[in-house]
């Protein structure tokens, strides 16, 4: 336990309140007996949760979103981590250009990418909705992964790698046993970003999903075109619960100590 200044803790408490405020509103609103998202809610009822849990138009997209998020994150990790290592170590002359190129998807509004991808996928004959979706989501999430891992690796003290080399370790051993554990905080942070980006992504999903692969944001949005009730608050609460449980499990399995600390 480290001692942090009490003023810092006060600040943390205040900021936490700010971060949680709309989330709490939405969660509480799902329990309302009334017909609107309002705060404080009018009465207590579980009817919206009942409605949502029984509705395949919400539950199936929830699973689709989870699956897609995990897939996109896995693929992004496999692509970005070797690339980050190669970029930092390689001291290539065109490094900046390559980096800018690989980060470029961040700069395009997803809606433009979505329309382009819709037409492009049709043109190259990519008919599988899931494949096109995955491609789109990987393109969107891989820059997060890359930038985060690059940032951590670039800022890292590389003496340990050198030491391992001097002690006779082969390059791949250095990577596997020294580099990867050292950059793990960046990988985990990047993975969390990537998953949440994919989970919340709207534009690409809106255009590339079909009725089998509909994701939760799309079904919420479609619902919200003409339906105004707190059912969306209820399904959002369920969404929050699932992700929180997943993060807690992650912490149990890997330990936050290993998530955020570079192993020492």
């Amino acid at each position, binding site marked *: 336990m480290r001692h942090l200044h009490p003023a810092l803790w006060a600040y943390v408490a205040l900021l936490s309140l700010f971060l949680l405020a709309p989330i709490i509103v939405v969660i509480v609103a799902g329990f309302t007996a009334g017909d609107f998202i309002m705060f404080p809610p009018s009465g207590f009822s579980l009817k919206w949760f009942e409605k949502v849990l029984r509705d395949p138009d919400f539950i199936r997209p929830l699973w689709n979103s989870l699956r897609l998020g995990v897939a996109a994150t896995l693929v992004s990790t496999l692509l970005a981590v070797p690339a980050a290592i190669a970029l930092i170590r390689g001291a290539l002359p065109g490094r900046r250009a390559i980096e800018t190129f690989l980060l470029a998807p961040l*700069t395009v509004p997803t809606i433009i990418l979505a329309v382009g991808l819709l037409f492009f996928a049709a043109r190259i004959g990519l008919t599988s909705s899931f494949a096109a979706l995955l491609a789109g989501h990987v393109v969107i999430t891989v820059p997060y992964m890359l930038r985060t891992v690059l940032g951590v690796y670039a800022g890292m003290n590389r003496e340990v790698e050198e030491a391992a080399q001097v002690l006779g370790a082969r390059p791949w051993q250095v990577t596997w046993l020294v580099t990867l554990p050292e950059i793990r905080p960046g990988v985990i942070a990047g993975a969390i970003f990537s998953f949440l980006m994919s989970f919340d992504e709207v534009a690409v999903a809106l255009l590339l999903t079909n009725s089998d692969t509909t994701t939760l944001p799309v079904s919420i949005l479609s619902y919200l075109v003409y339906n105004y009730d707190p059912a969306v608050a209820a399904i959002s609460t369920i*969404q929050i619960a699932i992700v929180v449980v997943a993060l807690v499990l992650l912490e149990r399995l890997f330990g936050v100590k290993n998530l*955020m600390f570079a192993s020492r």
Partner: protein
Amino acid sequence: MDVTASADGRIASGSRTEREFPIGLVLGLAPIVLVVAVFFVGPLIVNALESLKTPAGPKGLQQYGRIFGDVYYLMVIGQTLLFGIVVTAICAVVGYPMGYAVARSGRQVKALLILIVVAPLLVNVVVRSFGWMVILGGAGAVNAGLRAIGLPKAELMYNWTGVTIAMVHVLLPFMILSVASTIETLDERLEEAARVLGASSRRVFREITLPLSMEGVVTGAILVFTLTIGSFVTVLLLGKNATMVLPVLIYQQLTVASDWPFAAAMGVTLLGLVSGLLWAQAALRGALGKARR
């Protein structure tokens, strides 16, 4: 931080590594470059081609002429970039202390803080916006509180204030976690050594921790900036017509106006501007880094 500089005189860090496996470099970079080249550049080319279409028929730069020849659109571009800068600055200042706290807390507190920090991202953007309406609206929680203590009503919705608050809220996690993961990897012995040598806590922070964690702030800033200027749902729902940004215009042109060439031109413009800024940022840091030596 440049590779060759970190060794300060000793083995040029990494040089032995790649002399022994240049193939590793290629293998590491090839897959990602391929994926991005196909599934990003491909759609972009489709968009660029679309942006060259004109109502008359022959291809040309007419759509770009509409954008750059009209003060209104130039103003919207300016507003968009300014909005991005403001949100980024706020996130950096507000988020850094939190990132520090996350990095330096003990295991259980850290786990809890990470959950709180990612909370904004757990709810769909539209539903989250409704949550903000409830809090910031004229009949909402904040104003109810102000009324209770006799203060006048605060106009927090349908203007830049509300939009900025909501945007900062959802992008803070990116800044905080970037900063936190960088501070995590800092060697604490450096700070300890400085303290042992008599430096005050404040000085240690200012001269050691802060400079070394800048990389995290920069990462966070890039993420926040690019996300801000690419987002439209929040601005659409919480802003009004005067708070116009380019992505909202693009969305309009794709839907109600159905003028895809125009939308594509705006998208290409946005991409160009941001890529240029990112490039400039990277070049600047490289130049500053070299100058320091």
